[in-house]
């Protein structure tokens, strides 16, 4: 296990370094000059040169990238101020350390991710289990249809509809608000209900469909049938044998989804006006804020990579047949 983890973590580090390099190089493939966003009305050549110097854009790209990478661990002294480790640079836009911005925005993303994934996992897997248990029943068919529909709608369609109906017309739910758990735990909770619900709708349907078909498949497996033949209670077999067999793929999907959700849900945040990593990512791209773009890209990639490792590790724990080769 330890060897597995070491190897995977090293591999992940290489991937992250490469991603940062790709991001850097592609950023400079754009024809536009970020300095133009900082010169106001005074875009004289001398002012632009000064800005290039301030932002460190006067150095060769590869040197900039290397400095950036080293700075993550060692911190940096930049023309516009100090940037203590972990230094993801100073935002071009407001000279704030990117790390501080990420830390400020992460609670929103985290709350959304945890709230949303809790709902979609519980509801999705729960529905799937009940459907598999009562195969062919009315409940099963209704759940399947709803799941199918849920899987086919998009946040940019049901999001505005939900706001219109539940918030604007009926006034039942808050239209979406950033959480600040320390100061206002109450409104933090109500502000997240709608976004979490809507986000989970499009996810849970997938889980219920997958869970159902996996369980049905598992129940027809030989070891499960054997267990039942041995006279074990059907509920016990259902949960102990079949569910265990179905867990693997579910965890895989969950890992993939979590990785991306923790990296920031751009469309959900945009629809509900939340300020998480997704929102930060969009402003980084549109304001050509390279350090910020790097920071968000790296955070997103890191969560994807980490969850991949976790998934693989869990897989091995659940299914002893899989060796961590």
């Amino acid at each position, binding site marked *: 296990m330890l060897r597995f983890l070491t190897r995977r973590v090293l591999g992940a580090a290489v991937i992250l370094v490469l991603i940062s390099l790709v991001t850097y190089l592609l950023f400079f493939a*754009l*024809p*536009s*000059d970020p300095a*133009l*966003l*900082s*010169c*106001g*009305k*005074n*875009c*004289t*050549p*001398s*002012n*632009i040169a*000064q*800005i290039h*110097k*301030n932002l460190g854009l006067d150095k060769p790209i590869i040197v900039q990238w290397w400095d950036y990478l080293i700075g993550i661990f060692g911190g940096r002294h930049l*023309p*516009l*101020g100090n940037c203590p480790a972990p230094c993801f640079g100073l*935002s071009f*836009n*407001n*000279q*704030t350390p990117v790390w501080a*911005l990420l830390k*400020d*925005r992460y609670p929103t993303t985290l709350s959304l991710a945890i709230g949303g994934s809790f709902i979609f996992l519980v509801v999705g897997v729960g529905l799937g289990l009940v459907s598999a248990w009562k195969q062919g029943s009315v409940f099963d068919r209704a759940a399947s249809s709803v799941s199918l529909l849920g899987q086919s709608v998009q946040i*940019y369609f049901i999001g*505005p509809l939900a706001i219109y109906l539940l918030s*604007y017309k009926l*006034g039942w739910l808050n*239209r*979406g608000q*950033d959480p600040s758990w320390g100061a206002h735990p109450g409104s933090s909770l109500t502000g997240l209900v709608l976004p979490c619900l809507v986000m989970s709708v499009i996810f849970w349907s997938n889980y219920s469909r997958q869970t159902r078909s996996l369980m049905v498949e598992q129940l027809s497996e030989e070891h499960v049938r054997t267990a039942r033949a041995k006279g074990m209670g059907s509920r016990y077999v259902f949960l102990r044998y079949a569910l265990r067999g179905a867990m693997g793929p579910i965890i895989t999907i969950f890992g993939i989804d979590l990785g991306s959700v923790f990296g920031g849900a*751009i*469309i959900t945040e*945009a*629809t509900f*006006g939340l*300020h998480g990593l997704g*929102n*930060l990512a*969009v*402003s980084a*791209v*549109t*304001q*050509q804020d390279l350090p910020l773009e790097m920071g968000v890209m790296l955070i997103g990639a890191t969560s994807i990579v980490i969850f991949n490792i976790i998934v693989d590790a869990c897989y091995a724990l659940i299914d002893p047949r899989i060796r961590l080769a």
Partner: protein
Amino acid sequence: MKKRRAYSAAAVLSVGALALSACSSGNGGGGGSSNPSGGSTTAASTAKVQTITVGTAADSVGPAPAVAGAKKGGTAIDLEPAGINHLDPAEAYVNQEQVIGQLFSRQLTNYKIDPTTGKTTLVGDLATDTGTSSDGGKTWTFHLKDGLKWQDGTAITSDQVKYGIERLFSSFETAGPQYLQQWLTGQSDFRKVYGGPQGGKSLPDSVLATPDDKTIVFHFKTPHADAPYAMALSGSGPILKAKDTGPKYDTAPFSDGPYVVSSYKPGKALELTRNKYWDAKTDPIRGAFPDKWDIQLGVEQPGLTQRLEQQSGSDKDAVSLVQSADPTQMSVLAASQYKSRLESNYQPFVDVFNINVSRIKNVKVRQAIIYAFPMQQVQTALGGPQQGELGTNLIGPTVSGFKPSDPYGKLTKPLGDPEKAKELLKEAGVKNLHLSFAYSNSGQRWANVATTLKNSFAKAGITLDAKAIDPTAYYTLIGKTNNPYDLYRTGWGSDWPNASTVIPPTQDGRLVADDDPNYSHLNDPKVNSEIDRISKITDLTQQAAEWQTLAETIMKTDAPEIPYLYDKYYNVYGDGLGGISYNSAYGTINPNTIYVK
């Protein structure tokens, strides 16, 4: 000029322009948009033109004029669609930064606004008056008031003002206005002369003198009659050297205004609480009624407008100081229930389409384009009449000396005059005119405009090739003097209500260079010499009138731009707020008279 804060994603304001005005959806918020929008001429125009005058020493005495019914206390909420880029007053150039900055920084002069009549007067803020000039307008002297203090109780002295001005030269101060730096050194590349106070160097007394603790004397290289206005720019105030944190000041400024920055989360929230050392008796401008300002940043449209409409919970004490209502909300806001809490007023921005003079050299062709231009349809495509009124003048209605002028009869034929355009093209001997039109594809609005323009120009026999440019590259590309486009939109606003901040920067052909705001590349020697002559006039009223005449002449004889919209602020505010007034110099709601009911 003052930039308008663009809304989130699309934003990317660069070069002076009135940002892209719009919107975004780059961020997915939905095709949203913001700023100016147009509408038909029939729209009820509630906007009034406000002439700003220069006040006397008596006007400059605090406290600020009483607001009927005002009481102290409560928390006022400000909803802003974008983040604030700069809190350092020296970096403030966008009207959002300026108006919010007023709450925690003071300048030598500033705008005093009567809450009932809206009458706006330039008065001394830290200074006892708007300054006295000598030496033919080259030397300006200001005296500081008594009892001025920083947020830690330190007294404000003239050498701190001098330090504040010197700090404008620092290498990291790149975004703010550069008038004072250029006037003091006579150089556009002023850092060659003086690089800021960081190395311990100071500007000599022959340039900027502080004969005593209360007096500061500016020695400009040339006469500048509008120096009192320049002293109202955010950077024209003191900085306490011991509290100068360099670039970090931009996120944590030290206050000499009625509020201090108690917490700041860039792009998300800014909280201002009372500064106990601020003395209302010294301040003729700021009423500072609420105990706290809760400034919420990055509130996306149209959600921002909807929150103000619904005013549920604490939103009843909310206002958007800078942001107009989302164009999609115009029909909602037309309902009578919003009438009592609606503010509609001109902003100092004029939206124009530049005709690239270096590509379209024949003035008749340019005039034909102006005739063919469908003002009203563009206005409609942008949203509705409430956010911007059809305008035909290079100088907007908030600028002193403004007189409506319409040499091409655009207002009588707002849908364009394709016949007249065809006629002129025939005279010019041009057949099958192809125009390349560049627009920033920040959301749908400008793409809609492109579609509309294509349609209307076709009626005049002009083929329009619309070229969408990524919003981040828009100003880079149209800013090039050899850009391959014939028509592109920009916006320009005055820095203060004198056209000296409009006509010279946008029309002086000697300035034409990459990224220069003379986007149409007009270089008419007659215009250039007029600019020189008018700039020297020391009587501001006369100067204003002459700028207006010049602007009309430029439109008639050179036709380098198609001004089409005077932007407006148009939005609702929460019922829980009173004393709403408007700052037409910034084009924002004036926070200084607002109180929480």
